[in-house]
Structure formats: C-alpha cells, structure tokens
C-alpha cells in the first residue's frame, strides 16, 4: 500500500490557527455574513486590509517576493477558521493566483506581481468552463498568436470566484494544442466581459468571463513548459483549501445545531435528549473529526510527491461527505425553523454544495483515488 499521509503540525500552523480563530470570530459574526450577502462587493475592504496587515496574503509567498516564505500547510488553518465563520472575501482566490505564479510564472512575472499580491491586491484564477469535468486539462477556451506578437483569446470561463474584485486574473486556455495560463488585468477586458453569476452560496461573488475579443501581449503568458504541472498544482491546492473551508464550516454547523438541540423543547423534553436526533449528531461529529484529520494530513503532506495528491483527494472527499451530511441534518433537525431563511443551517448547506461543485466532488475524488491506489 502506498503512503497515505500522516499528521504533522508546525509551530507556525499552531500560531496562525490561534490568531485566525480569534480574528475570524470577531470579524465575521453571522450578522455581518448576512449583511455582506446583500452587498454588491460581498466583503468588507477594512477586514481585507487587516488580513494584509497580519501578513496573511503573503504566508505562502516566498520571502524574495514579499511574503513570509511558508507554505499552503500554514494557509490551511487560516482558511479553516474563515470557513468556520462563513467569511467572505477573495483570500483563497488571491492565494491560488499567487500559487499559479509561484509554480508557473516567469521570473519577470513573479517579480512584478507577487509582491503586489502579498501586499493585498486581490487576484483570482479562472479554470472552470461550461462543459467542465473538473479535470485540470479539460480546456476549450483558446489563445491564438496574432499579429504583432499579441495573443487573441476566445471562449468562456465560468464560476470564476472573486473576478470582480481581482486586479489580476490567471486564466487557463489552450494554445498551440497545449494547456496554457495567461495573466489578465481588468483593463484587458471589454465592457460586459464579466457577468456576475447567481450562485447557491450567497456569501460568494462568482463571475462568468467571456474572453472573445480580449487580446494581450505575449509576455502575459506564464511559462508554457510548466503550464500542465501548474494546472495540476492549482487543482490540488484549490481542493486543499476548499477542504479547509469545509471542515471549518462542518464544525460550526454541528455547534450551531447542538445549540438548538440543547435548548429547544418539545413534548416536555429538550429535543437533544431524543436518540433519533442525538445519534445522527454523533455520526456528524465522528465524520467531522475524520475529515479534520484528513485535512491536517493533507496540509502536512501537500508537497510530497504522490502522497500529497492522495491525502488532498481524501481530504476533499471526506470534507464533502462530512459537511453535506452535517448541514443537511442541521436543516432537518431545526424543524420548521430549519425551513426558513433566518435559520443559518441553509447557509452551511449552500456553502457545502458550492464547494462540492468546485474542483471535484467526493465521487470524483474517490474515482481518482481508485486509480492512484489500485
């Protein structure tokens, strides 16, 4: 049997977990979450600036480019705590865009863009397409070399998180028959290229990006030799951070449900005393603990060839199962209140569905694992 991964936890992870738990709880109470759902931008720029001041945007950026030179393992506790508080904002998108540049950018691009991301300029990645199957190299959007050394883009990307706030967009296209990544700025986009999508997770800002008519200089192309590997890296990084958000959300969702089960009375009894409710909550809890163990194994082993991919796919599959179950039961166990807008259970359930639909659901990752393990 292959090495499936193991738990390891650095002092940096511990310190960031502690700070993030406190920060996210204070900055993202559920009333704020609900207010921002109605806000066009969708996040609080003051909180975003504070995250920059805390150095969070540069955690996984090398010191030479203005970051603190840690890795995604240290980003995981931050995102877990954000997910726990249903926090909104382009943190994960910006982190992933930085990863794209670190893994696949030219030296000039890294020097130009990474320090800006570390300093708090939002960025995003555009991987999804209308006929996506979650495979990183399934790409139909195209770039063609045109006159004067410029690239002409065509096609459409969908489900691009935070494209509205992003000052940099890393877009997956096909060029000369191979996958490629191109860096765009808002100035490159014609009016109407970005359309805000209506998505199930209302804490999120997601966009469709039409590339037809967009032209950029060839130096916007990330290193073509590394595009395939960079897309694989982004796929795994995105799933790792999604799993972190989901594990945090699962914990909060279970706690939220338990609060209700400990206080709500029916037929003269606190409903949490009924085994019909108590035992499924134990199921939700044990699935949560298992998902969290997978998450911190994936964080620790992320950079290990082979094991990293196994651990990340297990983490995402486990997180999908745990979050979906906990949030589904949360709606049900709140009874009539669970069917209302005001009950937070729906917020968790919607966020779980969003994450399952992004970068592969549990069944997708299990299928991948079968190929990796058997």
């Amino acid at each position, binding site marked *: *049997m292959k090495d*499936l*991964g*193991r*738990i390891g*936890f650095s002092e940096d992870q*511990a310190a960031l*977990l*502690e700070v993030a738990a406190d920060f996210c709880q204070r900055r993202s109470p559920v009333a704020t979450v609900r207010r921002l759902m109605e806000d066009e931008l969708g996040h609080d720029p003051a909180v975003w600036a504070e995250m920059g001041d805390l150095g969070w945007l540069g955690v996984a950026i090398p010191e030479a480019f203005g970051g603190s030179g840690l890795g995604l393992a240290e980003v995981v506790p931050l995102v877990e705590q954000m997910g726990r508080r249903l926090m909104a904002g382009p943190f994960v998108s910006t982190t992933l865009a930085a990863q794209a540049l670190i893994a696949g950018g030219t030296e000039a691009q890294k020097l130009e863009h990474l320090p800006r991301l570390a300093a708090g300029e939002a960025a995003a990645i555009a991987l999804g397409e209308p006929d996506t199957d979650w495979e990183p190299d399934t790409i139909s959007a195209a770039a063609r070399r045109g006159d004067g050394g410029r690239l002409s883009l065509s096609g459409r990307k969908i489900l691009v998180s935070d494209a509205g706030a992003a000052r940099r967009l890393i877009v997956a296209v096909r060029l000369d028959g191979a996958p490629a990544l191109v860096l765009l700025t808002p100035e490159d986009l014609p009016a109407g290229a970005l359309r805000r999508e209506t998505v199930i997770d209302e804490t999120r800002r997601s966009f469709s990006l039409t590339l037809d008519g967009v032209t950029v200089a060839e130096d916007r192309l990330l290193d073509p030799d590394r595009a395939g590997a960079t897309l694989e890296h982004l796929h795994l990084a995105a799933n790792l951070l999604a799993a972190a958000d989901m594990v945090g959300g699962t*914990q909060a969702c*279970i706690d939220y449900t*338990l609060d209700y*089960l*400990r206080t709500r009375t029916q037929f003269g009894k*606190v409903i*949490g*005393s*009924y*085994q019909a409710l*108590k*035992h499924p*909550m*134990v199921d939700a*809890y*044990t699935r949560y*603990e*298992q*998902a*969290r*163990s*997978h998450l*911190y*194994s994936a964080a620790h082993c992320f950079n290990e060839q082979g094991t990293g991919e196994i651990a990340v796919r*297990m983490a995402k*599959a*486990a997180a999908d199962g745990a979050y979906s179950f906990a949030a589904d039961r949360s709606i049900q166990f709140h009874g009539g209140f669970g069917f209302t807008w005001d009950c937070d259970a729906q917020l968790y359930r919607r966020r779980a569905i969003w994450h399952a639909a992004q970068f592969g659901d549990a*069944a997708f990752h*299990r*299928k991948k*694992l*079968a190929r990796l*393990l*058997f």
Partner: protein
Amino acid sequence: MSTVDPKDLAAFAEQADAWFAENVVRDPGFMLPLTFMEVGTDKQFHFLRDWQNKVWEAGYLGAAWPKAYGGGGLPQAFQSAATRAMRKHHGPIMLNAIGINWAGPLILEMGTEAQKAAYLKGILSAEDIWCQGFSEPGHGSDLGSAQTRAVRHGDHYVVNGSKIWTTLGRYARYMILLARTDPSTERKYDGLSFFLMPMKAPGIETVPIRKLTGEHGFTQTFFTDAKAPADGLVGPEGGGWKVAMRTLEYERGARGGQAGGYVSVGANAFDVFDLARRTQRGGQPVLEDPLVADEMVGFLMEIQALTLNGQRTQVPELVADRPQGIPLASKLMGTEMSRRLNDFAVRLTGARGAYYVDEPDAVDNGLWARNYLNAFSATIGGGTSQIQANIVGEHVLGLPKS
C-alpha cells in the same frame, strides 16, 4: 532497573526477532482464533496455551513484570521490543488475555503480597487461565446493578447468582468477580466487592453459550453456595466498584502495566484490500468493478482517518475544542467500521460468500463470514454502539441524557 542501555535493548530485540522467526508456527493445520474471545475448541485452547507458555519461558512475555512474580524485571522498552517482534512474525495471540492485560496489572497495583505471590506467575505461564465475572444476564451494560450475592461466613464468602459472557469460562481457574456484599446501601455502587474467585470449586457450573458463529466462545457461570475465600478480596469489602472501574481502565488500555503481546489480530482494511486484489469475478479482478472500487476507497479513507485521529490526539492544538472527543468516540468508530468492512469482504467473495468455515471451496476457508459475525462481539461487548453513541452525545457533544 529503570535506565535502558540502548546496546542491551538492541541485542534483546535482535534475539527476540530471531526467536520469533524460528518459533512461530504459521499453520498448525487448523484455524486459529483471531481473538481470545473466539477460542472455541480444545485443540485451539491447548495450542495457544502452549504457545503463551513458550513465549513466557523464552522471556518475551512479562519481561517488565517483577522477577519475584515470574517476570523478567526489565524496563518496559524490552517488552515492547518483544511484542514488536511477535507482531512482525505474525505470532499467534496470547491466550490468557484477562490475566495478562487486566487482572494481572490490577493485582500488581492493588493486590496483597500474598495475592501477588499466588497468582502472577501462573498468569504469565498460562498455567492459570483467568476469566471475568462482571456482566449479568439482566445487566449487560449496567455493571453497577450487579445482583450476584456474596455473604460473609468466617474466612470466606458464600456466592449465589450468575454471570454471563464469561470468555474462557470453561477453561478458567480463576475469575475476577464483582458481587454484591451489601444489598442495603443507599448508592448501589457502595454494596459491591471485588473478588479473586477460584473457579474449580463446588457450586460453580459453567454452561457454554453457543455464539452466532456456531462456536462456543463464552459461558454463563452459575454460583450455588460457592465459596470465595475472604483473602481473595481486592480492596475493602464494599470498595469493589472502584476496583472494577480501575480494571476497565486496564481493559481499555487507558492504563499501562500489561504483560505484553497482543490478544487479537483483527483483519483490517489492508487485508480486505488484499482480498479485493486477488479475487476474480468473471475472469476480471473484482476491483475493476467501479462500484467495488468506490466502496474500497471509502474503507481505505476511513481506516486512514482512524489512524490519523490517533496521531492528531498527540497534537493538543488540534484537539483543543473537544480534547476527549476522539478517545471517547474511537470504540464506536473502530468497531462499526470493522463490522461494515467484514460485511464488504463477504460480498467481495461473490457467490462463494454463501460458503462457511471449513468448506474447501470457500475463499480463505470461510474466514470472512466468521469475521463478520464475530465483529458484533465488539459492537455489542464493552457497551453497545448505541450506548457508545449516548456517551459521545452526552459527554462530548453536551446533549442531555436520553
């Protein structure tokens, strides 16, 4: 002796490795039980008793128990090395589980000098097999309500009542017995006392219980005016509940001091994975069926999660919210997984899943079907999964009592 010379330890480990390599009998010609609870035939019993005796005589069981009581007087690291060698060479289980894992360490900790001298060596040599008399027919999970009576008459107590699920009851020479010496106490727990009880005494009858597997693993034990010597009391009269709770700590491995070795060799997800790889259906490896593959991945994820859970409990920052959560839920998670995994293994064998133990055409001699049925011993024994879910729900999640 408390300091360990690494050179001595390495030499000991090397000797143990060589000894087990030479002495382990992989196939005695009949199926060996996977756990001490599944010893069903005299052939199995005698084979395992001889095996434990041989391991002890070689110095690889009880290595860290005091020399005066039959042990090796060495630091624990030596016994751990011996146990690792035993496992590496797939040695059969240690038979006298209740003796070496919980009665023995209990006597070492709380017993009188006379009790230590009388009982410990026989536990290690497997000359004296031990059993446990806690559960009663009317009180499976509720030990505090035990009704078996013990009434003092001079230098002994007269015992009446019955105990159930007595593992190795047919073979045992001694029992650790929880009995009621005072039925009138305000708290039911204060009327219980803890005895080291001879089993080969008039008035004790052991009736085999036939398990769902068809085998005889346990007995029900009936006491009719049976004599328990008063010098077999552990702790004071009326102090039995505390001793019983300490015994459970040893039983669950929450407290160290066991003599070493292991008493079960459960099949795990990797064994089932191996089964899935070598099983063919319609000329194809069964793992090529995507539904089978998906289920197998699920089990591998689950067993990996349980391993990781154990590692995570060693990182305080990662269990800060509910430090007792994983330990209290691990029996529920582990035993339920094992039951479902063995059910999956039976299904993997396809049409041959209809066979049972000893059928020549059965896969692995019908082991998987028996494993599945035996897996319920863990989801029911030591507190059913439903009781475990109540414990987790109430003590970890803070829900009100059912």
